[in-house]
């Protein structure tokens, strides 16, 4: 069983990724984190390649296999964002999420394929859900920054606006990806990519509110007023995520399992 070898690859990759995060915080140069990180990616990819070869088909069929890709992609995304924006915490965060998925795979590579209802047995399930979770994390951070800005006295916190802009755009990127993957999945599962199901309605409202922020940002002068959109949008996001099942409109939702 090739999966029994996974632990070695996983531990080595995680060791390199955690070291890369530590190196980011400790060293001024980027060389060491780069080497550490890419070595981890190499080791992890080696396992996927071995699995691919022994399977004879791309390892995308079982939940355990999709989680494998997710563990890899999430750290790569964190890494690219770090290269681009220097957000150290994001690397740490994505490594943590990846570690969680690796641990799930170590404990039981197939645990989630047992018991999943038929509609959820899809390669879209993992990316759709996790991209949303990433988005929630970004938007949560943006909300905190926006509240600090609203509470503070303008000038002192001017640099916060740049952070909010960045987080909202990255978060919206993930949010839209989540919606679009959901649409592709829905087409495979139910025949329509969009049906204005209550969950979809609230996802749309949330995304549209963040869109209002991004677009108003270019014309508004009163930044403090504008910044209020972020906490409001986050509230809507929470409704979309957790609250939908309590709304009267949700009685027929296919998303309330």
């Amino acid at each position, binding site marked *: 069983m090739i999966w029994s070898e996974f632990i070695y690859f996983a531990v080595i990759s995680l060791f390199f990724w955690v070291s890369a995060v530590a190196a980011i915080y400790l060293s001024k140069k980027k060389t060491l984190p780069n080497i550490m990180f890419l070595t981890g990616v190499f080791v992890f990819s080696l396992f996927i390649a071995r699995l691919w070869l022994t399977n004879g088909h791309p390892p995308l069929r079982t939940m355990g296999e999709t989680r494998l890709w997710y563990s890899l992609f999430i750290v790569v995304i964190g890494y690219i*964002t770090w290269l*681009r*924006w220097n957000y150290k915490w994001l690397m740490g965060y994505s490594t943590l999420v990846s570690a969680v998925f690796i641990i799930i795979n170590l404990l039981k590579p197939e645990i989630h394929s*047992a*018991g999943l*209802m*038929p*509609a959820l*047995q*899809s390669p879209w399930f993992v990316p759709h859900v996790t991209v949303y979770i990433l988005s929630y994390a970004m938007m949560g951070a943006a909300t905190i920054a926006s509240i600090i800005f609203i509470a503070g006295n303008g000038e002192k916190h001017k640099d916060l*606006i*740049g*952070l*909010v*802009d*960045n987080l*909202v*755009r*990255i978060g*919206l*990127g*993930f949010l*839209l*990806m989540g919606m*679009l993957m959901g*649409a*592709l999945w829905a*087409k*495979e*599962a*139910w*025949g*329509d*990519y*969009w049906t*204005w199901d*209550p969950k979809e*309605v*609230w996802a*749309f*409202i949330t995304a*549209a*509110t963040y*869109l*209002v922020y991004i*677009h*108003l*940002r*270019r*014309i*508004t*002068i009163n930044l403090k007023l504008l910044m209020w959109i972020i906490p409001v949008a986050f509230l809507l996001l929470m409704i979309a995520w957790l609250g939908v099942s309590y*709304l*009267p*409109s949700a*009685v027929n939702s296919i998303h309330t399992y």
Partner: protein
Amino acid sequence: MEREGNSKQKADTIKYIIILAVITAGVLLQITTGQFPYDLIGYPVNLMIAIALIVLASAKPGKILTAAGSLPVSVFLIVLITILTIVMGLMPDNRLKGSWPFALTYFMILINLALIVGRRVRSFRLRDTGFILNHAGLFILLLSAGLGAADSQHLFMKIYEGETSSSAEDYVTGNRVGVPFKLTLEDFGIEYYAPKFFVIDTKSGIVEQLSDDFRQGLNVTCDTLTDAGYEHEAMVRVKGPGVDTSGWVSSGVNMQPGKVLQIDRDRYLSMGEPQTKSFCSSVVLINGNDSVLKNDIRVNHPMRYGSWRIYQFSYDRQMGSHSQYSVLELVRDPWIIPAYIGIFMLLAGAVSLFWKGGRL
């Protein structure tokens, strides 16, 4: 950081008044004529509207079009559709999606998007790629989803095992409609996950679930697993220290306890209700006389045939896996390819958002 607030644009409130007038007209139409007549924009009307929008996008805009395609109008429209959608989200039914005000707002967004995409394409520079992917992608998707969906068909075909059918019931009108192929249902079946077993100790009153790690030294093998409607039955063999027995256990129906199997003096084995793993209709699709396609249709695995996709929809729930028939959903969406193009452009656009971040 702030862009220059165009003072002429600001003074110009007339465009908002026009938008609100259109919405008001929509409300009036809603009151007098009822829902937006979606069928009327089916082919070829929707194609003509699409072409008109593209022509509009490529025309050199005068004063009116420049105003209609301006950023403040976009924001106003996005806020409007958001408010309408919040109302939709709070209503117990979603009739609002087919209403006049919603359709008109949607249409104004299409016009606005067409104009801004046209403007950017005319003065294209490489760094506009992300912008074009997002806005053109959304335009194409909204066009296909809003106008194109008027051409889509949703049919339901109830078909018995061994029978062949070439007609199905329209979801909206309830009429029987012929389809350009014949479907034979060879078999319908339900697969279950391995059921969970519990050991009930009548002396101590403890019920424990047997898992992979915790088996109380017992080895349970399940030979046959059948279901009669809601009740699942399994023929099991239990082996362990001082135990070697076999017999039927069942999951019970509607809170009624099922059959249990006595293992030894105090202990009994009972079965939980197994979870569904898959619903599967094995079908043969016959096109004309010669070409024959065999397929297993399962949830998440529709069958494709031309612009048709065929989905597993339902079955006889009283009979479970013994259901004599299967209900298939037949969906035809001729605009699915542009819709996918829009979706993939938006996916690429999302990556660009991610990459460009807050740098305007």
